[in-house]
């Protein structure tokens, strides 16, 4: 709740030395595009990073070249000190410009580029005048690596520092692997780089990654203090030096390898091993480590995993772009009808994203459960006590659906029953305020049926969230014939506003994700019936790169939900063959053994974890194809029928909504890599062996380029 007075004043908060305060405005003529340099009365040079062609500061080749020129100039004409900071409102630097990481030439060419970038960083690191990085907001990847080249790092409250490279199948590549492990406890540095998790400023101070954490208002005093030698610099302690010795590194590296392998298969994700290897071999020799980092980084970057993960990064950006904020749409209040598992979590998530949310249900106990789950979510996300209280204050129990009247978005999440939903609409529709949208979280009822009986069917749209809402980034935004474009655009913008990625889909049975997942899950169940151990089946899918196997996933989602989806698809897709549902599965559901939520499903569950046998036979050859291809085949059907607009959205949706192996770049990308004809042949073979449910979609035989444009 920052009101307009403080908001206005805060525009003058940021200190930019000789450039004044607040936003970087008229700076006169500058020989550089992305940097501004000016020296203050004390002789301190302020170098302000402000990328000209983008709203965020990322490191491109041009940015680094300019920086090199500036450093050359400063080395000739030495200032008393150099302060490096960003003019952007929310961050110091977000890292490398990933656009330059695509469509690369040879590994050698990449190495050459890296070497010149390193030369710039080294020049900064070897400056013989004091250098200070002032860090506010995000300071990631290459940005952090540049900051590490400075002698002091001052973090403004709220700053977050991290090395996210690993999530792109990379490790730091601008000397950061060496500089980080030399500056702080190498285990902590390696952990940061291996997990990719950013740390908050206070944690960074504890680690020694920054020398001070302070509010913006004490910055000038802190800089002066540093220049007078009164600000103690972070230096590695004895423990850190011992940990960087060769025997200690060997020991620690072994442990890191084990832990990294548990998180991600080294065969799929080579970056952790490459990083551990770098440190193990060169941890005590910063120079050698930086040299080795160059070739290691170049190798990773040109490899398939990194390229696919970078593709996924851009898929996410593309989806975010669909959900771009539109100034004419205001989303302040959300009303959620139905405080079941989904409705409750949707409401809690929206409250956490800053919305005022009213949550209605017929029973107060369901709402109470949602309040508790939101409180737990706040804890898990490390919200401070005041922030947590604000979230919970914004989540307003509403036993009488009163919030409908003021809501900008009403989300219906009542049981999947047409009559119940219609009854809810009859109650709430007359109360909707003008301009409000009515969204349904249905996963199985066609929107064409839901809109019947509405006075204004143009307001209805589908917002299909995935379970668990706080972890699954995808929302399928379902259009229906009667909806206006404005309503649909609002739904997309709302999805972005609550930090989720929208996948525009048509109202077709199961939309995209459930339609693609169901054949995969059913096939796994069928394999169980054939006598395979569940662990064997899951392991085969995990070996392909799925985050969890299909049977564990079914247990997580809930067998009742899976069965419901399967029955719905079978009923609505009359021409599509689906694997039969064995009687024992129905029995399990009838007995209330629904999976994780009841403690027993296909697996027994304890403390939220399935109890799996360690020693199980290997899956027979072809198991992976039998599991994965039906899913990919269904994806092709959805693409061919235009249920999703294009391959990129499809791939993004399957990665963010179904967890499809990200390093493979998405199901269609995977199919393209293998060749559509090859996929069709494999499906043909499976069809002959197992029946019509494997019949290849006609789309595979089409010209791939023709499909792409759809």
């Amino acid at each position, binding site marked *: *709740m920052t*009101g307009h*007075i403080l908001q206005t004043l805060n525009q003058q908060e940021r200190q930019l030395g000789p450039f004044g305060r607040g936003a970087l405005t008229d700076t006169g003529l500058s020989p550089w595009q992305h940097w501004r340099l000016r020296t203050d009365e004390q002789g301190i040079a302020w170098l302000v990073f402000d990328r000209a062609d983008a709203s965020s500061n990322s490191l491109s080749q041009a940015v680094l070249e300019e920086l090199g020129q500036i450093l050359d100039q400063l080395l000739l004409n030495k200032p008393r000190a150099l302060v490096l900071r960003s003019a952007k409102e929310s961050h110091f630097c977000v890292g490398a410009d990933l656009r330059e990481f695509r469509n690369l030439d040879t590994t050698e060419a990449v190495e050459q580029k890296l070497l010149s970038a390193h030369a710039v960083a080294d020049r900064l690191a070897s400056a013989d005048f004091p250098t200070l990085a002032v860090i506010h907001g995000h300071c990631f990847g290459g940005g952090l690596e540049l900051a590490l080249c400075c002698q002091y790092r001052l973090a403004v409250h709220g700053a977050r520092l991290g090395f996210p490279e690993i999530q792109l199948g990379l490790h730091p590549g601008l000397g950061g692997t060496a500089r980080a492990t030399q500056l702080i406890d190498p285990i902590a540095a390696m952990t940061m780089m291996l997990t990719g998790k950013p740390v908050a400023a206070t944690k960074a101070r504890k680690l020694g990654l920054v020398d001070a954490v302070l509010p913006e208002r004490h910055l000038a005093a802190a800089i002066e203090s540093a220049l007078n030698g009164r600000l103690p610099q972070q230096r590695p302690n004895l423990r850190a030096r011992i940990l960087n010795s060769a025997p200690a590194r060997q020991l620690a590296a072994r442990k890191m390898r084990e832990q990294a392998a548990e998180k991600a298969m080294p065969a799929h994700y080579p970056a952790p091993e490459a990083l551990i290897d770098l440190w193990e071999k060169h941890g005590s020799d910063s120079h050698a480590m930086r040299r080795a980092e160059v070739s290691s980084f170049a190798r990773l970057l040109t490899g398939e995993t990194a390229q696919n993960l970078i593709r996924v990064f851009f898929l996410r950006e593309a989806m975010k772009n669909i959900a771009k904020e539109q100034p004419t749409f205001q989303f302040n209040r959300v009303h959620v009808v139905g405080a079941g598992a989904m409705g409750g979590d949707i409401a809690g998530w929206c409250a956490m994203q800053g919305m005022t949310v009213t949550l209605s249900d017929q029973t*107060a106990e369901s709402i*109470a459960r949602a*309040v508790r789950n939101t*409180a737990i979510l706040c804890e898990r996300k490390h919200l401070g006590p005041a922030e947590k209280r604000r979230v919970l*204050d914004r989540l307003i129990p509403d036993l009488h659906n*009163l919030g409908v009247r003021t809501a900008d978005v009403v989300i219906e999440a009542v049981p999947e029953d047409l009559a119940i939903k219609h009854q809810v609409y009859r109650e709430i529709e007359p109360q909707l305020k003008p301009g409000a949208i009515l969204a349904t979280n249905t996963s199985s009822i066609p929107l064409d049926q839901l809109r019947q009986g509405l006075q204004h069917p143009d307001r209805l749209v589908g917002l299909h969230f995935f379970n668990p809402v706080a972890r699954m980034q995808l929302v399928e935004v379902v259009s229906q014939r009667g909806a206006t474009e404005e309503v649909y655009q609002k739904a997309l913008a709302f999805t972005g506003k609550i930090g989720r990625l929208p996948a525009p889909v048509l109202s077709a049975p199961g939309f995209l994700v459930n339609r693609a997942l169901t054949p995969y899950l059913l096939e796994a169940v069928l394999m169980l019936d054939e006598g395979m151990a569940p662990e064997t089946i899951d392991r085969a899918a995990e070996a392909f790169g799925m985050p969890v196997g299909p049977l564990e996933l079914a247990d997580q989602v809930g067998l009742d939900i899976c069965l419901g989806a399967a029955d719905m698809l079978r009923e609505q897709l009359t021409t599509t063959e689906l694997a039969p549902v064995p009687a024992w599965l129905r029995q399990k559901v009838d007995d209330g053994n629904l999976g994780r939520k009841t403690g027993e499903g296909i697996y027994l569950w304890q403390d939220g974890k399935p109890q799996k046998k360690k020693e199980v036979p290997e899956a027979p050859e072809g198991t992976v194809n039998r599991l994965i291809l039906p899913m990919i085949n269904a994806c092709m059907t959805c693409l061919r029928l235009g249920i999703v607009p294009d391959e990129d959205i499809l791939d993004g949706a399957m990665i963010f909504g179904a967890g499809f192996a990200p390093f493979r770049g998405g199901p269609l990308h995977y199919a393209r890599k293998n060749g559509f004809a090859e996929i069709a042949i494999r499906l043909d073979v499976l069809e002959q062996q197992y029946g019509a449910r494997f019949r290849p979609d006609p789309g595979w035989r089409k010209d791939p380029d023709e499909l792409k444009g759809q």
Partner: protein
Amino acid sequence: MSYSPQDFTNAHSTRPVYLVDGARTPFLKVRGKPGPFSPVDLAVQCGRPLLLRLDLPAEAFDQVILGCVNVVAGEMNPARVAALRLGLGEAMTAFTVQINCGSGMQSIDTAFRYIREGSADLILAGGAEALSHAPMVLEDEAVNWLAGVQQAKGLPARLRQLARFRPGYLKPVVSLKRGLTDPIAELNMGQTAEVIAHLFHISRVQADEYAVSSHHRLARAQQEGWLDQEVAPAFSNDGEVFKRDDGVRPDSSLESLSKLKPVFEAPYGKVTAGNSSQITDGASWVVLASEEAVQKYQLKPKAVILDSQWSALDPAIMGLAPVLSVSHLLTRHQLTLDDIDLWELNEAFAAQVLACLAALNDADFCRTALGREAPWGTLDRNRLNIDGGAVSLGHPVGASGNRIVLHLINALQRTGVKRGIATECIGGGQSGAMLIEAV
């Protein structure tokens, strides 16, 4: 004490002030440890559904006033904290009022006067108290000892100071207990009830009978759903929902109550835990509006405030003070007891309520204390606290004064009668009373 009706000629001359709506939390019995809600948590729990129901823009409100006696350290000026947490915006001025057990009514009265004089149109006025959060405090000697340790310079001095420790220093005092003792009269509130029970010949059995009826009346009101609009369920962060006042004992009987020992003046006293108000957590809000606000936002007022009165007497007989306020109000408006259709007289103690009724009907008392030639007469018990009171639903001190006004509004509406008085005794020897009419 003397007064003349002419002193109050302004009472009718200015703008009418309406009571629009209100809501409260369930009153939750303190069960030996801090409850799930702080005072402001409670104020938010009932404030949110009330604001949702009213559907008014935040800017519509001019002010927030909240009564709270035991303010907790993390919520100084709870009124402002509550206003911000309720989303009423940074520009909302808010202050907290404290007059012990009258705080929740003081907030209404202050709002009433602001609106009547024309400086505000819409005010949220409430009361909140979390007696379960009353802190444990150290005796002054213990605090002095601790300060001595911290200030001692050098090891010998520090050791000398440490050696002055007495085991009794470890024994904290529940601040609540101290707060319920009158510092002037040096009597516990329960003892003041003993004093007036004695002076007005209230027996233990009468007090117990009264308590039983309070429980039965509340139980019936809950069962009939008469409190459904008034009480908003409260939701705790750990997933519990509290729907009703939980101190009620529908099976309460004279027999069960007669077994209890006197708590304040054992063994011969009459006041027991069973015939005293319960120690509870709770909050309550009402919305007051001017004629202009009613028009502008198309509000449907439930009642109009006609007048209010505060009075005081010796702290040792604080429980009798409502008689003074009521007497002033009735005189000023030339009303008799029978002209008042419903009464809410806060049940601090059953014996204290009965003593007030006895005083109103006591010729000597009315002559000497109120300057009346004749006593006021008998107050019809069927019009008094018709849905129970603090004995059965508890007395979160800062909230009670607000609750009795809120409930009076709702009870007038439900029974379809017109005029009501809500009044309470206030620790320290004071009382407040409010005369309202259904509209």
